[in-house]
């Protein structure tokens, strides 16, 4: 390993940060789409969509950064995951296309509006499910030979990955409902308060099932968690703590906290996933170090990022500030 600092390790941190940013940010706006069919009425749907319309493009940009960043820092991940998930990636992209254009088209449609409602929710659901299946596939591992994926087209679709797909779907819905609590008022907010605990229980049950199932799928996970009782077990405890906080905040009707607590729940789940598979990034064969790109490429990009990313975070935060506060029913588009 390099003496002064380990670039690859820094890149693990950066990509990890990018992934969790994406999951949280696109999570709450995909969540609007997932909840769309269940919304009380068309006005509520307007509010839901308007609450994310100014920011969804920026949120999705984190996904693009994830793709490009992986290509730059861990090309092996990019060139194994995408062929392995070929069909799944296509479904995700098709979903993102439909929901993306629905933002523009729905507000311009008259009689065909219901079609764009479907495009928005259908697209969000498919995209969220496919992303969850990616997580499941990562836990399962990839069939590789000589740095190339050699498995089949549908290896990524198993009962286990279906479960993780549904898990992330519910998770995004939860992020969506707690976001909506923050951004709406009146009967829409009441509705969001009402569904949040149900979603939370759904999420906990499925995350629990995944936790029980994973050790049977992957020996490494079993050994890591069960050979000795270690500090690792604190992480799921923290997750449960965040779940309890979410419930309490909903019960007390504290507007901002359910969202914050849900974010905590996601972050701690993400951390437990990382420590389960560490240091493998293309399991079962390749670690982050096997997968990384040339030193000088990692360095070249890192130097730029150190300079640019603070600005990105600043003006992103600024747009959230500009569009802070409640979204009112019937508030105009454009």
């Amino acid at each position, binding site marked *: 390993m390099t003496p002064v600092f380990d670039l690859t390790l820094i890149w693990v941190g950066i990509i990890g940060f990018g992934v969790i940013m994406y999951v949280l940010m696109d999570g709450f706006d995909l969540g609007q789409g997932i909840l769309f069919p269940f919304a009380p*009425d*068309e006005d509520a749907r*307007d509010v839901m969509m308007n609450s994310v319309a*100014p920011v969804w*493009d*920026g949120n*999705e*940009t984190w*996904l*693009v*950064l994830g*793709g*490009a*960043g992986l*290509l*730059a*820092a861990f*090309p092996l991940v*990019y*060139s*194994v995951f995408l*062929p*392995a998930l*070929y*069909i799944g*990636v*296509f479904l995700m*992209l098709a979903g*993102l*296309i*439909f929901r*993306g*254009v629905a*933002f*523009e*088209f729905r507000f*311009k*449609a*008259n009689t065909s*509006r219901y079609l764009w409602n479907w495009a928005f929710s259908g697209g969000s659901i498919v995209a969220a499910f496919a992303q969850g299946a990616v997580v499941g596939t990562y836990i399962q591992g990839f069939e590789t030979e000589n*740095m*190339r994926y050699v498995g089949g*087209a549908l290896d990524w679709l198993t009962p286990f990955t279906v479960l993780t797909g549904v898990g992330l779907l519910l998770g995004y819905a939860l992020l969506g409902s707690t976001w909506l609590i923050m951004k709406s008022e009146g009967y829409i907010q009441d509705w969001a308060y009402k569904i949040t605990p149900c979603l939370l229980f759904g999420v906990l049950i499925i995350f629990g099932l995944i936790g029980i199932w994973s050790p049977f799928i992957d020996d490494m996970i079993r050994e890591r968690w069960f050979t000795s009782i270690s500090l690792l077990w604190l992480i799921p405890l923290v997750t449960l703590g965040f779940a309890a906080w979410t419930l309490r905040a909903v019960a007390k009707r504290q507007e901002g906290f359910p969202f914050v607590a849900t974010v905590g729940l996601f972050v701690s789940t993400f951390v437990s996933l990382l420590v389960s598979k560490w240091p493998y990034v293309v399991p079962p064969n390749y670690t982050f170090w096997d997968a990384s*790109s*040339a030193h*000088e*490429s990692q360095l*070249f*990009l890192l130097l*730029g*990022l150190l300079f*640019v990313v603070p600005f*990105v975070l600043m003006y*992103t935060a600024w*747009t959230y500030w*500009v*569009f802070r506060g409640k979204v009112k*029913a*019937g508030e105009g588009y*454009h």
Partner: protein
Amino acid sequence: MELDPLLLSRIQFAFVVSFHAIFPVFTIGLASFIALLEGLFYKTRNPLWERLAKFWTQVFAVVFGMGVVSGIVMSFQFGTNWSNFSYATANFLGPVLSYEVVTAFFLEAAFLGVLLFGRNKVPKGVHLFAAIMVAVGTFISSFWILAANSWMQTPAGVDLRDGIFHVTSWGQALFNASFIWRFIHMALASFLTGGFVVAGVSAWYLLRKREVEANKKALSMTLWLLLLIAPSQALVGDFHGLNTLEHQPTKVAAMEGNWERSEGVPLLLFAIPDSKNETNHFEIGIPKLASLILTHEWEGEVPGLLDVPAEERPPVGIVFWAFRIMVGIGFIMIGFALAGLWLRRGGRYWQSPRFLKGLTLMSVSPFIAVLAGWFVTEVGRAPWLVYGLMTQAEGLTPSLTGGMALFTLIGYIAVYAAVFSAGIYYLLRLFQAGIEAQDEDHELDFDHAKRPMSAAHVSLDNGGKL
């Protein structure tokens, strides 16, 4: 029949990237136009500018949305269908595409939100700033993506070790031999696209005597712009061609339909290239002109397709004809720009029905020219993916089967067909409603707020606002 994953992947890439490409060229030009309108409004406070800005921003929003979603597809295409290529070139392309995301896409996305939704939420100066930032973002984005593409055409600054490219000089790799011409040519193409669409739509309104004051202004502005840009494009295109002659002679041979390396080569206006018999049929040409254009000498030597073995030649017919379509449109554009200048005498440029009808038709021409240009560039590079270093076949994903590739190809065609027709439909409706719709908008917003919640939007279904 065996399904060939290579051929299907090429068709798929050509399809998705062509689909994507038509949106950026429009949004790049339009973003600058909107920033200009916002700037004029900020300076003069003349509401006319704001009306124009608002109208074109609505158009921009639809097109930009389609650009974003099709762009997201592009960033995964490399990995899904060309994973060997991605793995081999990641040391260069990875950082370049990442820089594009952090320097351009985030900028565009953040300020787009403010541009579209923030008119009443931020001070006027900040709104103008947002418009400028979006325009700047589109150019930063083209910088990186064209650096990536040019590097694949004229690779430099890298060292190929064990099948993997290692960057030895970032400067040479980014500012490779063809980059600067490609960048300028593409920037001008974007302005031409924005210009001809705005001119065409304004002309259409003027023909119908709608919002004459505003549309006349828009038309006049764009005609001045086109007068400057259209001839420059031909000039830059010429330099671009000279550069290609130096670095990709086979491509130029295909563009010219020239089989034997020879001197005093004619410029072919018409021909049907025949790759099997290595000749052309039905040639019509102007003697010695190709030599003159390419070497600036009547007897200059022009490379021939026979210089390289058959398997290193691109599909000649596509390159040959795509090139003629692009250049042909380029000259028609110059013609329109000059006609506009001529008609200014006596202010006829906004009244001559023939001119206005012609302009309306011309609004699709830049898209055709842009696609034709990219086809010249990309098909002309075949069979190479990284010119001279890596072929398309070597870049393909090893686990990809013909069936998988066919499935997604059909999938993308279906999805894009749906999205594209809807997009065109809403754009046409936006044009139909026109600038006037803004006035109704205000009334609508007003009574909208008063209406009982459950009844909202009913009136929208009956017309008025789109």
